[in-house]
């Protein structure tokens, strides 16, 4: 089975802030990590390879330093990594990003399965996985919570939604997005870490990918961010109760009575 796992490098989100002058994100000095949801996608790729043979290729689009994240994935057991990096690729929205990733999957060739995380914690859209499926015109299975049966040409999967779950069969090639219920990701071994340092990471840019210049980057993105701001603070008067537990509870009862039927 030839498996591509899409992995994104994301900032440690809580630290992100906006420069008050330029209104841009301050990225300097912000810690970076593999998108937590992608660790489950990676583990699933490795598990499937252990069962069916083949290879796991980690695919990431991002700045040069995303190489670190790819190496981390190799340390966990991925076979090789490809980084999509080039100025014109920057500024892509989910439409353009999924187009670029799909072009790389076509270039890799003979891919049986693409696995994505449920969502990236920075953009938080959960749109890139389905976008890849649509660009490739492959079937997708989103919110996968369990691998019921895996054959080399089709998979039987459990999908979760808000009010229940379902069981489905998908014929490969296909795109999956997985939930954290699917597995428990392994931790890189020391040996894995050492060998990952030496791994050659393939780097492709827009010319390698032969992408349509009208479909990539800021210019190829249908959506545009027009402004960003900090969330509003809720400006209000707070009643503070800092007496004994029973005084506070009694005081609260009086207030609650005016709000809801007790």
């Amino acid at each position: 089975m030839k498996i591509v796992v899409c992995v994104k490098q994301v900032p440690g989100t809580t630290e992100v802030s906006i420069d008050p002058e330029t209104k841009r994100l301050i990225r300097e000095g912000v810690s970076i990590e593999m998108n937590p949801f992608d660790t489950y996608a990676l583990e699933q790729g490795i598990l499937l390879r252990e069962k069916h043979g083949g290879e796991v290729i980690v695919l990431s689009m991002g700045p040069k330093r995303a190489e670190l994240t790819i190496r981390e994935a190799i340390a966990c057991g991925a076979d090789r990594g490809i980084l999509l990096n080039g100025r014109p690729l920057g500024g892509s929205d989910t439409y353009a990003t999924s187009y670029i990733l799909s072009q790389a999957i076509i270039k890799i060739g003979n891919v049986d399965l693409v696995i994505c995380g449920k969502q990236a914690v920075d953009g938080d859209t959960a749109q890139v996985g389905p976008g890849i499926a649509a660009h490739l015109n492959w079937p997708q299975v989103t919110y996968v919570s369990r691998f019921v049966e895996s054959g080399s040409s089709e998979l039987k999967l459990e999908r979760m939604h808000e009010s229940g779950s379902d069981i489905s069969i998908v014929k490969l090639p296909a795109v999956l997005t997985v939930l954290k219920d699917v597995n428990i990701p392994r931790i890189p071994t020391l040996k894995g870490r050492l060998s990952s340092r030496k791994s050659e990471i393939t780097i492709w840019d827009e010319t390698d990918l032969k992408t349509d210049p009208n479909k990539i980057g800021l210019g190829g993105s249908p959506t545009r961010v027009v402004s960003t701001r900090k969330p509003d603070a809720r400006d209000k008067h707070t009643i503070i109760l800092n007496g004994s537990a029973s005084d506070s509870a009694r005081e609260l009862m009086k207030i609650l009575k005016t709000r809801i039927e007790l």
Partner: protein
Amino acid sequence: MKLTESDIADNYNDVWVLGEIVEGQVHKVTLELLGIAKELADKHTSKKCKVVCLLMGSKLVGYELELFHKFADRVIIVDDESLKYFNDAIYASVVSRLIKKYKPEILISGATSKGRSLMPLVAVKIETGLTADCTGLDIDKETGLLLQTRPAYGGNIIATIKCENHRPQMSTVRQGVFKSMEADKTRTGELISETVLEEEKNTRFTVLSEEAYSEDSKINLHDANVIVTGGRGVKNPEGFKIIHELAGAVKGAVGATRATIDSGWISYAHQVGQTGLTVQPEVYIACGVSGQIQHLVGMQSSDFIIAINKDPDAPIMQLADVAIVGDLFEVVPVITKLLSNY
């Protein structure tokens, strides 16, 4: 595909809501979206936008009336056995074909697992933009463009996004973000029926069976008037006992922060916040919750917020209407007791 200004001006109209049915009822988020769709249609003064609800599934009888009452001008129903289960491939083909036929200006869907699976497929097929999890939708007075506001970076940043040259302008919105409008029972509308084409049914994906969660594993945070939420301050799984007891006493539901879910103290279905549910109860009682932005974005529109925390400087205390400074293990049981004796 980029469209020309005149193409957009002349040919694209109407605000569409992708409707959803759960367990034989119109999903609450669909009704909420019809309300905001009506508002957007009214604000879009340069066009005569109708509010259209697209409903897909199998055996869809009798839903249109409720949709008309909730301000749909037109309901398009696609009723076919092949839509019984959620096969995103078939759904996406049908929606895309109908978009090409009717050319809506705006298309909104609930940010449910189905909406979040289907909308990005459709957006790419139609070659347009899509903004996920919007918390605000408005029409720009000057340009008539849809202004889509959403949190990003775990709620640390609020971004406003637009889609200028592609149509429809597409967004998903979570349940609880907009309030549903009072029904107008005198309203009627136009009912259109569309079909699934044979070639659209031929997919490489098949749903075999579906199972609904059992009643008691459903935690209906969306329907609760009162939510009592436990944070890391409850200390361990047993700590949730007093949270459950208080929730029982106020006939409310139990919420939780991600920190407690990550620690395995309670299931994900309880999580409120950026990566959990967005809720808007009449009263929200946060116990041992610090109030990080990712939690706040999921509950800050609650009508009345009560926080119980040892730390008077915890961010949740600034947001709260009533801030009780104290140990939740002392305060919460007393409140529960007073309520039970009430």
